């Protein structure tokens, strides 16, 4: 009897210990996607259980020479939509930044910064459009969820 109880205890304790460790490991896998530059854990912004809605306001200006006010409005709106798509891509995908400084005789002679972004955006919607004094603003939104990302 004592031997069997000791055997059960011996088998149970490592199993519980392993289960405890594995649950901790899975939790840490869910919460931490990658380590930041300072070594700290970075949590995912998009969680599996909820939807993330990103809203941006794109701006566009009509060309100085247009055939009619209607054409000016249409062109300004297209430019605003392009700006909105760019902002969505920047928020979701990130921006590639490249800077260049030229120093001559210990003095800064030239400085330039280039940013670029490239992405395929699917499912963005235009919610609201305003056109005032030649400036068109479009409010756009995109809903991100695991099901959409994995499509």
């Amino acid at each position, binding site marked *: 009897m004592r031997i069997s109880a000791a055997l059960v205890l011996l088998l149970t304790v490592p199993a519980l210990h392993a289960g405890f460790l594995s649950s901790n490991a899975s939790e840490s896998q869910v919460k931490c996607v990658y380590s930041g530059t300072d070594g700290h854990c970075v949590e995912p912004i998009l969680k599996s259980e909820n939807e993330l809605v990103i809203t941006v306001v794109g701006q566009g200006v009509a060309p100085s020479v247009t055939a009619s006010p209607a054409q000016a409005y249409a062109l300004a709106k297209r*430019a605003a939509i*392009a700006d909105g798509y760019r902002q969505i891509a920047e928020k979701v995908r990130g921006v590639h930044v490249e800077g260049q400084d030229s120093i001559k005789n210990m003095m800064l002679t030239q400085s330039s910064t280039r*940013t*670029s*972004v490239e992405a395929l*955006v*699917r499912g963005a*919607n*235009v919610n609201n459009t305003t056109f005032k004094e030649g400036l068109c603003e479009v409010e756009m939104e995109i809903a991100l969820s695991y099901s959409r990302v994995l499509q």
Partner: protein
Amino acid sequence: MRSRNGNCPFILTSLAVTCTLSLAADHYYIGYRLTSKNTQPIEETLTLSKAMRPCSTQPLSNISLQRLENETLEALLERERTRFLQFAASQEFRVKSNETLTPIHIETLHTLTLPTKCYAVEFNDRSVTITLLE
């Protein structure tokens, strides 16, 4: 599970849609590109080409546009470009953006591209139905 009326009407409807898209409709490849510099559009092109061979017949979504008498697809898309783009934008857009900043100069260049895809276009007397195919 079989409904009380049977599944035949659904199958027949699907067959009818597929046959209509493959036989009655013309297939076109349509693409679009907009380039804007410093938030002003500088170039806009809508490319249209009739498909040399039929595309797949799996419809994704469609739009009906009003057609004037004997109006070609080119003229119709030129007139209804905004509505067509709203319909096409619900699928996907490719965006490419470059910005250059110097102490005395800022320049932005955005390019918005609608990837060229196959559409089934069905011409009627007063309307045109454009269906995006998979």
